[in-house]
Protein backbone atom coordinates (compact mmCIF):
# COMPACT_ATOMS: atom_id res chain seq x y z
CA UNK A 1 0.00 0.00 0.00
CA UNK A 2 2.33 2.71 -1.20
CA UNK A 3 1.32 6.28 -1.62
CA UNK A 4 1.01 7.46 -5.19
CA UNK A 5 1.07 11.18 -5.79
CA UNK A 6 -2.11 11.22 -7.84
CA UNK A 7 -2.37 13.23 -11.04
CA UNK A 8 -5.18 15.25 -9.51
CA UNK A 9 -3.24 16.17 -6.36
CA UNK A 10 -0.21 17.01 -8.47
CA UNK A 11 -2.38 19.20 -10.68
CA UNK A 12 -3.91 20.98 -7.69
CA UNK A 13 -0.54 21.74 -6.13
CA UNK A 14 0.89 22.98 -9.44
CA UNK A 15 -2.17 25.18 -9.98
CA UNK A 16 -1.73 26.56 -6.45
CA UNK A 17 1.89 27.37 -7.23
CA UNK A 18 0.95 29.03 -10.55
CA UNK A 19 -1.90 31.01 -8.99
CA UNK A 20 0.40 32.00 -6.17
CA UNK A 21 3.12 33.18 -8.51
CA UNK A 22 0.79 35.16 -10.79
CA UNK A 23 -1.21 36.57 -7.87
CA UNK A 24 1.97 37.64 -6.08
CA UNK A 25 3.31 39.42 -9.15
CA UNK A 26 -0.02 41.14 -9.89
CA UNK A 27 -0.47 41.96 -6.21
CA UNK A 28 2.97 43.49 -5.86
CA UNK A 29 2.54 45.57 -9.02
CA UNK A 30 -0.89 46.98 -8.19
CA UNK A 31 -0.85 46.91 -4.38
CA UNK A 32 0.70 50.38 -3.94
CA UNK A 33 -2.63 52.11 -3.39
CA UNK A 34 -2.72 52.23 0.38
CA UNK A 35 0.96 52.82 0.98
CA UNK A 36 1.90 55.29 3.62
CA UNK A 37 4.72 57.58 2.58
CA UNK A 38 7.51 55.68 4.31
CA UNK A 39 6.40 52.13 3.60
CA UNK A 40 7.79 50.69 0.42
CA UNK A 41 6.02 48.08 -1.58
CA UNK A 42 9.28 46.14 -1.70
CA UNK A 43 9.16 45.76 2.07
CA UNK A 44 5.68 44.35 1.89
CA UNK A 45 6.62 41.85 -0.80
CA UNK A 46 9.80 40.73 0.95
CA UNK A 47 8.15 40.50 4.35
CA UNK A 48 5.48 38.27 2.81
CA UNK A 49 8.22 36.11 1.40
CA UNK A 50 9.70 35.89 4.88
CA UNK A 51 6.33 35.10 6.49
CA UNK A 52 5.57 32.24 4.11
CA UNK A 53 9.18 31.16 3.93
CA UNK A 54 9.38 30.92 7.70
CA UNK A 55 5.92 29.45 8.27
CA UNK A 56 6.50 26.41 6.07
CA UNK A 57 10.16 26.11 7.00
CA UNK A 58 9.06 26.13 10.66
CA UNK A 59 6.59 23.32 10.06
CA UNK A 60 9.31 21.31 8.45
CA UNK A 61 11.86 22.05 11.17
CA UNK A 62 9.43 21.27 13.98
CA UNK A 63 8.59 18.08 12.10
CA UNK A 64 12.26 17.17 12.35
CA UNK A 65 12.17 17.99 16.04
CA UNK A 66 9.11 15.78 16.50
CA UNK A 67 10.76 12.92 14.62
CA UNK A 68 13.87 13.21 16.81
CA UNK A 69 11.68 13.37 19.90
CA UNK A 70 9.99 10.11 18.92
CA UNK A 71 13.37 8.43 18.49
CA UNK A 72 14.86 9.80 21.69
CA UNK A 73 11.84 8.88 23.80
CA UNK A 74 11.58 5.52 21.96
CA UNK A 75 7.91 6.06 21.20
CA UNK A 76 6.06 3.12 19.70
CA UNK A 77 2.69 4.43 18.52
CA UNK A 78 4.18 7.09 16.23
CA UNK A 79 6.05 4.51 14.16
CA UNK A 80 2.84 4.40 12.11
CA UNK A 81 3.20 8.07 11.11
CA UNK A 82 6.99 8.13 10.84
CA UNK A 83 7.00 8.31 7.05
CA UNK A 84 4.62 11.28 7.13
CA UNK A 85 7.05 13.27 9.24
CA UNK A 86 9.98 12.11 7.12
CA UNK A 87 8.11 13.61 4.17
CA UNK A 88 7.44 16.87 6.02
CA UNK A 89 11.14 17.35 6.72
CA UNK A 90 11.95 17.04 3.02
CA UNK A 91 10.82 20.67 2.67
CA UNK A 92 13.73 21.85 4.87
CA UNK A 93 16.22 22.73 2.09
CA UNK A 94 13.59 24.61 0.04
CA UNK A 95 12.32 26.57 3.04
CA UNK A 96 15.89 27.29 4.10
CA UNK A 97 16.70 28.59 0.62
CA UNK A 98 13.74 31.00 0.74
CA UNK A 99 14.88 32.35 4.11
CA UNK A 100 18.47 32.73 2.91
CA UNK A 101 17.12 34.57 -0.14
CA UNK A 102 15.16 37.02 2.02
CA UNK A 103 18.10 37.58 4.38
CA UNK A 104 20.51 38.05 1.47
CA UNK A 105 18.18 40.57 -0.14
CA UNK A 106 18.17 42.47 3.14
CA UNK A 107 21.94 42.32 3.32
CA UNK A 108 22.12 43.88 -0.16
CA UNK A 109 19.58 46.54 0.93
CA UNK A 110 16.82 45.46 -1.41
CA UNK A 111 14.40 45.82 1.50
CA UNK A 112 14.40 47.25 5.02
CA UNK A 113 12.88 44.46 7.07
CA UNK A 114 16.04 44.25 9.14
CA UNK A 115 16.79 47.75 10.27
CA UNK A 116 20.14 46.68 11.75
CA UNK A 117 21.48 45.60 8.34
CA UNK A 118 21.85 49.27 7.42
CA UNK A 119 25.57 50.12 8.06
CA UNK A 120 24.64 53.76 8.82
CA UNK A 121 23.11 52.87 12.17
CA UNK A 122 26.58 51.91 13.41
CA UNK A 123 28.25 55.06 12.10
CA UNK A 124 28.55 57.74 14.79
CA UNK A 125 28.85 60.50 12.19
CA UNK A 126 25.73 59.45 10.30
CA UNK A 127 22.34 61.07 11.04
CA UNK A 128 20.90 57.52 11.16
CA UNK A 129 23.25 56.51 13.98
CA UNK A 130 21.40 54.38 16.51
CA UNK A 131 23.29 53.84 19.74
CA UNK A 132 21.10 50.95 20.90
CA UNK A 133 21.70 48.98 17.73
CA UNK A 134 25.37 49.98 17.60
CA UNK A 135 25.80 48.43 21.03
CA UNK A 136 24.51 45.13 19.67
CA UNK A 137 27.16 45.03 16.94
CA UNK A 138 29.08 42.23 18.63
CA UNK A 139 26.09 39.98 17.99
CA UNK A 140 24.26 41.55 15.05
CA UNK A 141 27.17 41.90 12.63
CA UNK A 142 26.96 40.39 9.14
CA UNK A 143 29.77 37.85 9.58
CA UNK A 144 28.53 36.32 12.81
CA UNK A 145 24.91 36.53 11.66
CA UNK A 146 25.55 34.75 8.38
CA UNK A 147 27.74 32.15 10.06
CA UNK A 148 24.89 31.34 12.45
CA UNK A 149 22.24 31.24 9.74
CA UNK A 150 24.19 29.06 7.34
CA UNK A 151 25.56 26.71 9.99
CA UNK A 152 22.13 26.20 11.57
CA UNK A 153 20.38 25.44 8.30
CA UNK A 154 23.26 23.19 7.26
CA UNK A 155 23.28 21.26 10.53
CA UNK A 156 19.50 20.76 10.56
CA UNK A 157 19.55 19.60 6.97
CA UNK A 158 22.39 17.17 7.70
CA UNK A 159 20.41 15.63 10.58
CA UNK A 160 17.25 15.43 8.46
CA UNK A 161 19.08 13.63 5.66
CA UNK A 162 20.73 11.23 8.08
CA UNK A 163 17.44 10.24 9.77
CA UNK A 164 15.78 9.65 6.43
CA UNK A 165 18.68 7.65 5.06
CA UNK A 166 18.85 5.42 8.13
CA UNK A 167 15.10 4.93 8.16
CA UNK A 168 15.13 3.66 4.57
CA UNK A 169 18.16 1.51 5.36
CA UNK A 170 16.34 -0.08 8.27
CA UNK A 171 13.49 -1.08 5.95
CA UNK A 172 15.96 -3.28 4.08
CA UNK A 173 18.33 -4.42 6.83
CA UNK A 174 16.20 -4.75 9.97
CA UNK A 175 17.69 -5.47 13.36
CA UNK A 176 18.07 -3.00 16.19
CA UNK A 177 21.48 -1.40 15.65
CA UNK A 178 20.13 1.30 13.30
CA UNK A 179 17.39 2.03 15.79
CA UNK A 180 19.83 2.50 18.66
CA UNK A 181 22.15 4.72 16.65
CA UNK A 182 19.11 6.79 15.64
CA UNK A 183 18.14 7.16 19.30
CA UNK A 184 21.62 8.45 20.09
CA UNK A 185 21.70 10.80 17.11
CA UNK A 186 18.21 12.08 18.00
CA UNK A 187 19.30 12.89 21.55
CA UNK A 188 22.21 14.91 20.17
CA UNK A 189 19.87 16.66 17.76
CA UNK A 190 17.48 17.65 20.56
CA UNK A 191 20.32 19.34 22.44
CA UNK A 192 21.48 21.13 19.29
CA UNK A 193 17.94 22.09 18.39
CA UNK A 194 17.12 23.37 21.87
CA UNK A 195 19.86 25.94 21.48
CA UNK A 196 19.71 26.70 17.78
CA UNK A 197 15.92 27.08 17.55
CA UNK A 198 15.94 29.94 20.04
CA UNK A 199 18.90 31.68 18.42
CA UNK A 200 17.29 31.26 15.01
CA UNK A 201 14.11 32.96 16.29
CA UNK A 202 16.12 35.91 17.63
CA UNK A 203 18.10 36.24 14.42
CA UNK A 204 15.40 35.91 11.80
CA UNK A 205 12.34 37.29 13.58
CA UNK A 206 13.10 39.12 16.81
CA UNK A 207 15.80 41.23 15.15
CA UNK A 208 13.07 42.80 12.96
CA UNK A 209 12.05 44.78 16.05
CA UNK A 210 15.72 45.48 16.70
CA UNK A 211 15.32 47.58 19.82
CA UNK A 212 13.09 45.12 21.55
CA UNK A 213 13.97 41.84 23.18
CA UNK A 214 12.24 39.05 25.05
CA UNK A 215 13.82 35.96 26.53
CA UNK A 216 10.64 33.98 25.97
CA UNK A 217 10.56 34.75 22.26
CA UNK A 218 12.49 31.69 21.13
CA UNK A 219 10.17 29.27 22.90
CA UNK A 220 7.14 31.11 21.69
CA UNK A 221 8.23 30.89 18.05
CA UNK A 222 9.19 27.25 18.55
CA UNK A 223 5.79 26.36 20.04
CA UNK A 224 4.08 27.98 17.06
CA UNK A 225 6.21 25.92 14.68
CA UNK A 226 5.48 22.80 16.64
CA UNK A 227 1.69 23.24 16.48
CA UNK A 228 2.10 23.82 12.75
CA UNK A 229 3.98 20.53 12.38
CA UNK A 230 1.39 18.58 14.38
CA UNK A 231 -1.50 20.05 12.39
CA UNK A 232 0.26 19.32 9.12
CA UNK A 233 0.98 15.75 10.19
CA UNK A 234 -2.66 15.27 11.19
CA UNK A 235 -3.97 16.73 7.94
CA UNK A 236 -1.69 14.55 5.81
CA UNK A 237 -2.71 11.46 7.76
CA UNK A 238 -6.40 12.32 7.35
CA UNK A 239 -5.82 12.75 3.61
CA UNK A 240 -4.06 9.39 3.40
CA UNK A 241 -6.86 7.73 5.38
CA UNK A 242 -9.44 9.23 3.03
CA UNK A 243 -7.57 7.50 0.17
CA UNK A 244 -7.82 4.20 2.04
CA UNK A 245 -4.10 4.12 2.82
CA UNK A 246 -2.38 3.42 6.16
CA UNK A 247 -4.69 0.50 7.03
CA UNK A 248 -3.02 -0.05 10.40
CA UNK A 249 -3.52 3.55 11.49
CA UNK A 250 -6.45 3.25 13.88
CA UNK A 251 -8.60 5.48 16.06
CA UNK A 252 -6.04 5.38 18.86
CA UNK A 253 -3.35 6.78 16.59
CA UNK A 254 -5.71 9.55 15.53
CA UNK A 255 -6.47 10.21 19.19
CA UNK A 256 -2.76 10.66 19.83
CA UNK A 257 -2.37 13.05 16.91
CA UNK A 258 -5.34 15.03 18.24
CA UNK A 259 -3.75 15.08 21.69
CA UNK A 260 -0.59 16.63 20.23
CA UNK A 261 -2.54 19.32 18.40
CA UNK A 262 -4.46 20.04 21.60
CA UNK A 263 -1.47 19.96 23.94
CA UNK A 264 0.86 22.09 21.83
CA UNK A 265 -1.91 24.62 21.25
CA UNK A 266 -2.02 24.95 25.03
CA UNK A 267 1.77 25.31 25.13
CA UNK A 268 1.57 28.05 22.50
CA UNK A 269 -1.14 29.90 24.45
CA UNK A 270 0.81 29.54 27.66
CA UNK A 271 3.94 31.07 26.14
CA UNK A 272 1.96 33.77 24.32
CA UNK A 273 0.30 34.77 27.54
CA UNK A 274 3.42 34.56 29.73
CA UNK A 275 5.32 36.82 27.37
CA UNK A 276 2.42 39.25 27.12
CA UNK A 277 1.49 39.36 30.78
CA UNK A 278 5.01 39.92 32.12
CA UNK A 279 5.63 42.79 29.71
CA UNK A 280 2.15 44.25 30.28
CA UNK A 281 2.55 44.06 34.04
CA UNK A 282 6.07 45.50 34.24
CA UNK A 283 5.14 48.22 31.74
CA UNK A 284 8.75 49.14 30.93
CA UNK A 285 8.74 51.51 27.93
CA UNK A 286 11.45 49.70 25.96
CA UNK A 287 9.62 46.38 26.26
CA UNK A 288 6.03 47.45 26.04
CA UNK A 289 6.42 49.25 22.68
CA UNK A 290 6.29 45.88 20.94
CA UNK A 291 2.75 45.28 22.19
CA UNK A 292 1.67 48.90 21.89
CA UNK A 293 2.47 48.70 18.19
CA UNK A 294 0.42 45.55 17.79
CA UNK A 295 -2.56 46.55 19.93
CA UNK A 296 -2.80 50.01 18.38
CA UNK A 297 -2.41 49.14 14.73
CA UNK A 298 -3.26 45.44 14.56
CA UNK A 299 -5.89 44.97 17.30
CA UNK A 300 -8.19 42.58 15.45
CA UNK A 301 -5.39 40.24 14.40
CA UNK A 302 -3.57 40.49 17.70
CA UNK A 303 -6.52 39.44 19.84
CA UNK A 304 -8.14 37.43 17.06
CA UNK A 305 -5.33 34.91 16.59
CA UNK A 306 -5.12 34.33 20.32
CA UNK A 307 -8.81 33.62 20.36
CA UNK A 308 -8.65 31.30 17.33
CA UNK A 309 -5.52 29.43 18.33
CA UNK A 310 -6.60 28.92 21.92
CA UNK A 311 -10.38 28.64 22.15
CA UNK A 312 -10.95 26.47 19.09
CA UNK A 313 -8.60 23.66 20.07
CA UNK A 314 -9.33 24.08 23.77
CA UNK A 315 -13.10 23.76 23.75
CA UNK A 316 -13.58 21.64 20.65
CA UNK A 317 -10.72 19.15 21.06
CA UNK A 318 -10.98 18.78 24.83
CA UNK A 319 -13.00 15.59 24.89
CA UNK A 320 -11.68 12.18 23.93
CA UNK A 321 -14.43 11.63 21.36
CA UNK A 322 -13.65 14.87 19.52
CA UNK A 323 -9.97 13.95 19.14
CA UNK A 324 -11.01 10.66 17.56
CA UNK A 325 -13.58 12.19 15.25
CA UNK A 326 -12.61 13.67 11.90
CA UNK A 327 -15.73 15.91 11.98
CA UNK A 328 -14.18 17.84 14.86
CA UNK A 329 -10.50 17.31 14.19
CA UNK A 330 -10.44 18.41 10.54
CA UNK A 331 -12.14 21.84 10.89
CA UNK A 332 -10.11 22.69 14.00
CA UNK A 333 -6.87 21.68 12.29
CA UNK A 334 -7.69 23.77 9.20
CA UNK A 335 -8.73 26.82 11.22
CA UNK A 336 -5.69 26.86 13.47
CA UNK A 337 -3.43 26.19 10.49
CA UNK A 338 -4.57 29.59 9.19
CA UNK A 339 -4.43 30.92 12.75
CA UNK A 340 -0.77 30.05 13.05
CA UNK A 341 0.02 31.53 9.65
CA UNK A 342 -1.54 34.75 10.97
CA UNK A 343 0.62 34.37 14.07
CA UNK A 344 3.76 34.39 11.92
CA UNK A 345 2.27 37.31 9.97
CA UNK A 346 2.01 39.21 13.23
CA UNK A 347 5.56 38.29 14.24
CA UNK A 348 6.93 39.92 11.10
CA UNK A 349 4.60 42.60 9.74
CA UNK A 350 4.25 45.15 12.57
CA UNK A 351 8.02 45.56 12.77
CA UNK A 352 8.15 46.25 9.02
CA UNK A 353 4.92 48.08 8.21
CA UNK A 354 4.50 49.81 11.59
CA UNK A 355 1.41 52.01 11.65
CA UNK A 356 0.41 51.03 8.10
CA UNK A 357 -1.56 48.22 9.70
CA UNK A 358 -2.47 44.81 8.32
CA UNK A 359 -3.19 44.40 4.64
CA UNK A 360 -4.18 40.89 3.83
CA UNK A 361 -4.96 41.28 0.17
CA UNK A 362 -4.24 39.60 -3.13
CA UNK A 363 -0.49 39.55 -2.52
CA UNK A 364 -0.69 37.92 0.91
CA UNK A 365 -3.30 35.32 0.01
CA UNK A 366 -1.79 34.30 -3.31
CA UNK A 367 1.71 34.05 -1.90
CA UNK A 368 0.39 31.81 0.88
CA UNK A 369 -1.38 29.61 -1.66
CA UNK A 370 1.73 29.46 -3.81
CA UNK A 371 3.89 28.32 -0.93
CA UNK A 372 1.21 25.89 0.17
CA UNK A 373 1.31 24.37 -3.30
CA UNK A 374 5.09 24.13 -3.19
CA UNK A 375 5.00 22.56 0.26
CA UNK A 376 2.37 19.99 -0.68
CA UNK A 377 4.20 19.17 -3.90
CA UNK A 378 7.52 18.62 -2.11
CA UNK A 379 6.05 16.63 0.76
CA UNK A 380 3.87 14.40 -1.41
CA UNK A 381 6.72 13.74 -3.82
CA UNK A 382 8.83 12.57 -0.91
CA UNK A 383 5.92 10.59 0.56
CA UNK A 384 5.57 8.64 -2.68
CA UNK A 385 9.23 7.60 -2.63
CA UNK A 386 9.02 5.05 0.19
CA UNK A 387 6.44 2.61 1.60
CA UNK A 388 3.99 4.46 3.84
CA UNK A 389 4.40 1.95 6.63
CA UNK A 390 7.95 1.36 7.79
CA UNK A 391 9.29 -2.19 7.74
CA UNK A 392 11.48 -3.90 10.32
CA UNK A 393 11.17 -1.16 12.91
CA UNK A 394 11.55 -2.74 16.36
CA UNK A 395 8.34 -1.01 17.56
CA UNK A 396 6.26 -1.65 14.48
CA UNK A 397 4.31 -4.54 15.98
CA UNK A 398 3.50 -2.50 19.08
CA UNK A 399 2.36 0.41 16.97
CA UNK A 400 0.05 -1.81 14.89
CA UNK A 401 -1.65 -2.95 18.11
CA UNK A 402 -1.78 0.52 19.59
CA UNK A 403 -4.91 0.78 21.71
CA UNK A 404 -5.78 3.44 24.26
Amino acid at each position, binding site marked *: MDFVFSKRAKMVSIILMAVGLIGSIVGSLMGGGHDHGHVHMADRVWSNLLINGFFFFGISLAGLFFLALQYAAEVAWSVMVKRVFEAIISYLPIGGTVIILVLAAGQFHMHHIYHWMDPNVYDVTSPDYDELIANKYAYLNPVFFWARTLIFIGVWYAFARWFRKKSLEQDLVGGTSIHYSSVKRAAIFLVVFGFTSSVMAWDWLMSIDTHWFSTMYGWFVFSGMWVGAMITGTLIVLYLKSKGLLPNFNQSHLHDMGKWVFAISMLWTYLWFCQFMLIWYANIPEEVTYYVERIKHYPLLFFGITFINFFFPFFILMSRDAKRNIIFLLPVALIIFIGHWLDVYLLVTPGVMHDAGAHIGLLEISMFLGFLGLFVFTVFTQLAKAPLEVKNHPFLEESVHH*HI
Partner: protein
Amino acid sequence: MANNVIYASYDSEHTLMAGAKALVSKGIHVDDVFSPFPIHGLDPVIGVSRTRLAICAFIYAMTGVALAVTGMWFFMIYDWPMNIGGKPSMSLIQNFPAFVPVTFEFAVLCAAHGMAITYFLRNWTLPGVKAKNPYPRTTDDRFVMEINPSHNHVSADEIKSAIADTKPVEVEERHK
Protein backbone atom coordinates in the same frame (compact mmCIF):
# COMPACT_ATOMS: atom_id res chain seq x y z
CA MET B 1 -29.12 -19.53 47.47
CA ALA B 2 -30.52 -16.22 46.26
CA ASN B 3 -27.85 -14.13 47.90
CA ASN B 4 -24.91 -16.30 46.94
CA VAL B 5 -22.08 -14.96 44.80
CA ILE B 6 -19.68 -17.00 42.70
CA TYR B 7 -15.97 -16.10 42.71
CA ALA B 8 -13.71 -17.49 40.01
CA SER B 9 -9.96 -17.04 40.59
CA TYR B 10 -7.37 -17.01 37.81
CA ASP B 11 -3.60 -16.89 37.93
CA SER B 12 -3.05 -14.42 35.11
CA GLU B 13 -4.84 -11.54 33.44
CA HIS B 14 -4.77 -13.38 30.13
CA THR B 15 -6.73 -16.39 31.37
CA LEU B 16 -9.18 -14.07 33.14
CA MET B 17 -9.62 -12.03 29.98
CA ALA B 18 -10.21 -15.10 27.86
CA GLY B 19 -12.55 -16.48 30.55
CA ALA B 20 -14.54 -13.24 30.70
CA LYS B 21 -14.91 -13.24 26.91
CA ALA B 22 -16.09 -16.86 26.94
CA LEU B 23 -18.62 -16.25 29.72
CA VAL B 24 -19.99 -13.06 28.18
CA SER B 25 -20.40 -14.83 24.83
CA LYS B 26 -22.64 -17.35 26.65
CA GLY B 27 -24.78 -14.47 27.93
CA ILE B 28 -23.44 -14.52 31.48
CA HIS B 29 -23.09 -11.15 33.17
CA VAL B 30 -19.79 -10.59 35.03
CA ASP B 31 -20.47 -8.22 37.93
CA ASP B 32 -16.94 -7.23 38.86
CA VAL B 33 -13.27 -8.11 38.56
CA PHE B 34 -10.59 -7.72 41.24
CA SER B 35 -7.01 -7.55 40.04
CA PRO B 36 -3.61 -6.28 41.23
CA PHE B 37 -3.43 -3.88 38.29
CA PRO B 38 -5.77 -2.48 35.63
CA ILE B 39 -6.36 -5.01 32.85
CA HIS B 40 -6.14 -3.30 29.49
CA GLY B 41 -9.30 -3.66 27.43
CA LEU B 42 -11.33 -5.50 30.07
CA ASP B 43 -13.93 -2.78 30.68
CA PRO B 44 -15.77 -3.05 27.37
CA VAL B 45 -15.71 -6.86 27.58
CA ILE B 46 -17.57 -7.06 30.90
CA GLY B 47 -19.76 -4.10 30.00
CA VAL B 48 -18.36 -1.43 32.29
CA SER B 49 -19.33 1.88 30.74
CA ARG B 50 -16.80 4.66 30.28
CA THR B 51 -16.05 6.90 33.21
CA ARG B 52 -17.81 10.24 33.42
CA LEU B 53 -15.11 11.66 35.67
CA ALA B 54 -13.87 13.90 32.84
CA ILE B 55 -17.24 15.62 32.60
CA CYS B 56 -17.16 16.19 36.37
CA ALA B 57 -13.65 17.63 36.02
CA PHE B 58 -14.85 20.11 33.40
CA ILE B 59 -17.74 21.23 35.59
CA TYR B 60 -15.47 21.61 38.64
CA ALA B 61 -12.94 23.62 36.62
CA MET B 62 -15.65 25.94 35.30
CA THR B 63 -16.93 26.37 38.85
CA GLY B 64 -13.39 27.31 39.84
CA VAL B 65 -13.18 29.86 37.02
CA ALA B 66 -16.51 31.41 38.01
CA LEU B 67 -15.59 31.54 41.71
CA ALA B 68 -12.14 33.01 41.05
CA VAL B 69 -13.39 35.72 38.71
CA THR B 70 -16.30 36.66 40.96
CA GLY B 71 -14.07 36.63 44.00
CA MET B 72 -11.36 38.78 42.49
CA TRP B 73 -13.91 41.19 41.09
CA PHE B 74 -15.48 41.56 44.53
CA PHE B 75 -12.22 41.85 46.51
CA MET B 76 -10.14 43.91 44.12
CA ILE B 77 -12.58 45.95 42.06
CA TYR B 78 -15.89 46.35 43.84
CA ASP B 79 -15.48 46.11 47.58
CA TRP B 80 -12.04 47.66 47.98
CA PRO B 81 -10.58 48.90 44.68
CA MET B 82 -6.85 48.30 44.57
CA ASN B 83 -4.22 50.08 42.55
CA ILE B 84 -1.37 47.69 41.93
CA GLY B 85 1.60 48.82 39.85
CA GLY B 86 -0.39 51.71 38.38
CA LYS B 87 -2.73 49.39 36.53
CA PRO B 88 -6.21 50.75 35.85
CA SER B 89 -8.31 49.99 38.88
CA MET B 90 -12.08 49.87 38.92
CA SER B 91 -12.12 47.68 35.83
CA LEU B 92 -12.14 43.91 35.68
CA ILE B 93 -11.60 43.65 31.94
CA GLN B 94 -8.66 46.05 31.76
CA ASN B 95 -6.96 44.28 34.63
CA PHE B 96 -7.76 40.84 33.37
CA PRO B 97 -4.24 39.69 32.41
CA ALA B 98 -3.29 40.01 36.08
CA PHE B 99 -6.21 37.81 37.08
CA VAL B 100 -5.60 35.04 34.56
CA PRO B 101 -2.94 33.15 36.57
CA VAL B 102 -5.15 33.08 39.66
CA THR B 103 -8.15 32.01 37.62
CA PHE B 104 -6.13 29.24 36.03
CA GLU B 105 -4.72 28.00 39.32
CA PHE B 106 -8.10 28.06 40.98
CA ALA B 107 -9.65 26.12 38.10
CA VAL B 108 -6.93 23.46 38.47
CA LEU B 109 -7.35 23.37 42.24
CA CYS B 110 -11.11 22.88 42.00
CA ALA B 111 -10.83 20.30 39.21
CA ALA B 112 -8.16 18.27 41.02
CA HIS B 113 -9.84 18.24 44.42
CA GLY B 114 -13.27 17.77 42.93
CA MET B 115 -12.11 14.78 40.90
CA ALA B 116 -10.31 13.17 43.83
CA ILE B 117 -13.29 13.58 46.16
CA THR B 118 -15.75 12.38 43.50
CA TYR B 119 -13.57 9.34 42.86
CA PHE B 120 -13.39 8.42 46.54
CA LEU B 121 -17.11 8.92 47.04
CA ARG B 122 -18.06 6.92 43.96
CA ASN B 123 -15.81 4.02 44.97
CA TRP B 124 -16.66 4.49 48.63
CA THR B 125 -13.00 4.29 49.57
CA LEU B 126 -13.07 6.96 52.22
CA PRO B 127 -10.81 6.92 55.28
CA GLY B 128 -12.02 4.35 57.81
CA VAL B 129 -14.21 2.48 55.33
CA LYS B 130 -13.75 -1.29 55.45
CA ALA B 131 -12.10 -2.81 52.37
CA LYS B 132 -14.54 -4.63 50.09
CA ASN B 133 -11.92 -6.87 48.61
CA PRO B 134 -13.15 -10.49 48.86
CA TYR B 135 -9.72 -12.00 48.19
CA PRO B 136 -6.66 -10.28 49.67
CA ARG B 137 -4.51 -12.16 47.15
CA THR B 138 -5.96 -9.99 44.35
CA THR B 139 -3.63 -7.30 45.62
CA ASP B 140 -0.73 -9.61 44.82
CA ASP B 141 -1.00 -12.27 42.13
CA ARG B 142 -4.64 -13.37 41.81
CA PHE B 143 -7.31 -12.23 39.37
CA VAL B 144 -10.86 -12.79 40.59
CA MET B 145 -14.18 -12.52 38.79
CA GLU B 146 -17.38 -11.91 40.71
CA ILE B 147 -20.61 -13.28 39.25
CA ASN B 148 -23.96 -12.93 40.95
CA PRO B 149 -26.41 -15.61 39.77
CA SER B 150 -29.38 -13.43 40.73
CA HIS B 151 -28.21 -10.91 38.09
CA ASN B 152 -28.26 -13.65 35.47
CA HIS B 153 -30.93 -15.57 33.62
CA VAL B 154 -28.78 -18.68 33.87
CA SER B 155 -28.77 -20.91 36.95
CA ALA B 156 -25.85 -21.01 39.36
CA ASP B 157 -24.90 -24.54 38.33
CA GLU B 158 -24.81 -23.64 34.64
CA ILE B 159 -22.62 -20.65 35.45
CA LYS B 160 -20.24 -22.86 37.41
CA SER B 161 -19.96 -25.37 34.60
CA ALA B 162 -19.29 -22.53 32.16
CA ILE B 163 -16.57 -21.20 34.46
CA ALA B 164 -14.99 -24.64 34.73
CA ASP B 165 -14.25 -24.50 30.97
CA THR B 166 -12.22 -21.27 31.38
CA LYS B 167 -9.28 -22.78 33.34
CA PRO B 168 -9.84 -21.09 36.72
CA VAL B 169 -7.53 -21.87 39.64
CA GLU B 170 -10.40 -21.95 42.05
CA VAL B 171 -14.18 -21.48 42.04
CA GLU B 172 -16.04 -20.64 45.21
CA GLU B 173 -19.61 -19.83 46.10
CA ARG B 174 -20.02 -17.51 49.04
CA HIS B 175 -22.89 -16.06 50.93
CA LYS B 176 -22.84 -12.32 50.43
